[in-house]
């Protein structure tokens, strides 16, 4: 039986116009461009701001060095785990650079580099991964939310914070970061929907690095691009080359400007690649081939920028060396900070569960104290 043959599905029925609300017809401008937006290597590079690009370059070099140092610290057992962002530095750094002091960053567990680029001390940024304390810094002091290990759950927080700031009349934008795998989570959907309905000043940055641990994007989504998901929520979606820091900076700046001006949220998909394994516990050779990795190596974010800036005379050998020297200073400080054993107080276990400790916790704290004293005497 076809639909036309169903009882009540006649022409007169179909000609009836629903009385109330109509679908929105202004969705077309929300659609992302079919190709990721690029600046480096295109005509758009003619308008690059040399000063900004020199900063970007120095930050990228520093970010790469940070990744290398953190990975080395994992091998030395100083970090329990480190999710690398080698290859993704342009996304991490641009995200931090486009924010004002009063704005908030909502990083995922992979985004320690974004937190460092925002000014957080690298040792503090790695506290969670070191196993010393969960967050490692005061989120309010730095306007950086705690790194979120559960996927996409920090996105509704960004929406709520941005909404609250706007209710209070404060000029605050929240930038929330998530990976391609995180876009499959329910919290991703709920956050984008809330943000669009509330027109909250939020920028959602998806770093599509190709894999959710081992699962490739094709098994994650059937959408043409992740940026397309924006359309269904009623917000613009932008597709951008995540290895092109000039493009990233431009697209993010525009989204932040739009949010600040009351234009509501934007979803940005940065197409990039995770050059290293998910973490040190992962074997990337099981799910991807060398050819793919090599192809992305040729599209390295630092090389792309260095080529462009060298060709245009914006940086020279001295600038490259200065950036590398600066990165070494950071790495040495990070090594030194991480090689000092953290002092942990076992009584901290009970100190921050409730504003006022419960009788139950006081009892358990006393038990632990007695155990510790017995150990000391032994």
């Amino acid at each position, binding site marked *: 039986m076809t639909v036309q043959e169903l009882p009540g599905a006649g022409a007169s029925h179909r000609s009836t116009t629903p009385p109330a609300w109509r679908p929105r017809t202004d969705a077309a401008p929300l659609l992302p461009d079919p190709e990721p937006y690029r600046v480096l290597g295109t005509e758009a590079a003619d308008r690059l701001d040399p000063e900004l690009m020199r900063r970007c370059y120095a930050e990228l070099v520093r970010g790469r060095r940070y990744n290398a140092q953190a990975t080395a610290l994992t091998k030395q057992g100083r970090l329990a785990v480190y999710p690398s962002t080698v290859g993704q530095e342009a996304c991490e750094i641009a995200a931090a650079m486009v924010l004002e002091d009063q704005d908030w960053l909502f990083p995922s567990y992979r985004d320690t580099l974004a937190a460092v680029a925002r000014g957080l001390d690298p040792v503090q940024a790695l506290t969670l991964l070191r196993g010393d304390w969960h967050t490692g810094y005061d989120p309010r002091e730095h306007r950086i939310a705690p790194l979120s290990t559960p996927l996409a759950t920090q996105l509704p927080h960004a929406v709520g914070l941005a909404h609250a700031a706007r209710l209070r009349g404060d000029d605050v934008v929240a930038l929330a970061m998530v990976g391609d795998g995180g876009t499959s989570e329910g919290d991703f959907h*709920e956050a984008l929907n809330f943000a669009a309905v509330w027109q909250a000043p939020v920028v959602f940055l998806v770093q599509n690095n190709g894999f959710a641990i081992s699962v490739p994007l094709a098994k994650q989504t059937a959408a043409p691009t992740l940026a397309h998901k924006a359309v269904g929520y009623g917000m613009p979606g932008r597709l951008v080359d995540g290895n092109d820091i000039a493009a990233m900076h431009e697209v993010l700046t525009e989204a932040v400007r739009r949010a600040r001006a009351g234009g509501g949220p934007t979803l940005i998909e940065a197409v990039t690649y995770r050059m290293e394994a998910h973490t040190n516990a992962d074997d990337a050779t099981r799910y991807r081939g060398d050819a793919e990795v090599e192809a992305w190596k040729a599209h390295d974010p630092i090389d792309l920028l260095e080529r462009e800036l060298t060709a245009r005379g914006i940086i020279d050998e001295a600038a490259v060396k200065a950036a590398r020297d600066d990165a070494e200073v950071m790495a040495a400080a990070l090594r030194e900070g991480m090689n000092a054993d953290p002092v942990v107080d076992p009584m901290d276990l009970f100190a921050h569960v409730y504003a006022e400790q419960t009788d139950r916790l006081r009892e358990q704290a006393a038990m632990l104290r007695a155990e510790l004293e017995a150990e000391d005497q032994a």
Partner: protein
Amino acid sequence: MAQALTRAMRDAMAEDPTVHVMGEDVGTLGGVFRITDGLAKEFGEERCTDTPLAEAGILGAAVGMAMYGLRPVVEMQFDAFAYPAFEQLISHVAKMRNRTRGAMPLPITIRVPYGGGIGGVEHHCDSSEAYYVATPGLTVVTPATVEDAYGLLRASIASDDPVVFLEPKRLYWSKADWRPEAPAAVPGIGKALVRRTGTSATLITYGPSLPVCLEAAEAAREEGWDLEVVDLRSLVPFDEDTVVESVRRTGRAVVVHEANGFGGPGAEIAARITERCFHHLEAPVLRVTGFDIPYPPPMLEKHHLPGVDRILDTVARLQWEN
């Protein structure tokens, strides 16, 4: 009780501009139980907000709002509808103070209408308190009287910690000689109250089962039992001292709640009584709870919920003679 809850939110909102009420249907409609009735009209939609229908989103957004210094009061429409928000509740709400070493407490009140006895269809009558009390970092309170509905909700909103505020649905329509123009001061969170003094045994209960226990205590007089009834009011923190003091006096204890017995709060309470009152007990601590079944359909719920007869039968078993 419904009016006392509304009044508590209204007074809190009037006194503190950072208090925001949010949830599905809380605005124009005033909530499906009308607990937020009139708040949107009085304080505007920005302070009493109809959100999209998404519990994780509602609670997740409340986390962000609390991070920015607001005091969100979230309504979860029904007990079983709160489950999509569990990841936010457990991974973020309960842990944020701890994760940030005290730098970022979250003063969120999560109102959950819970429990059965109203003839609701499935997924509308769960007694979900065991999930909440098993999560460190959450405060869990449940009023059984009109005064407590007001007082405990005010205390919950004022608390710097997240509070799961369990509202016994079947007591929404309970009435009392309560004068909203001058709400009486009630003891704050973490204090149990002896609602009826007695000498033969102690009934320990909370929320929807308090009126049932008081009725059972009256009926027990005919059997020669003089029952003391303790209303916990707060499950976390648990006022062990009030319970222990009562049981040491009476020598016998029955814990009553309508949530499933296995792994329910009664198990914990019975264990604590045994640990601290062993030499005072004349009989084992017994429990009267809902059966260990999914909440039954309306026509069967009267067989599931602990009623006066089941409580009296259990009390009779306290005449322990091996």
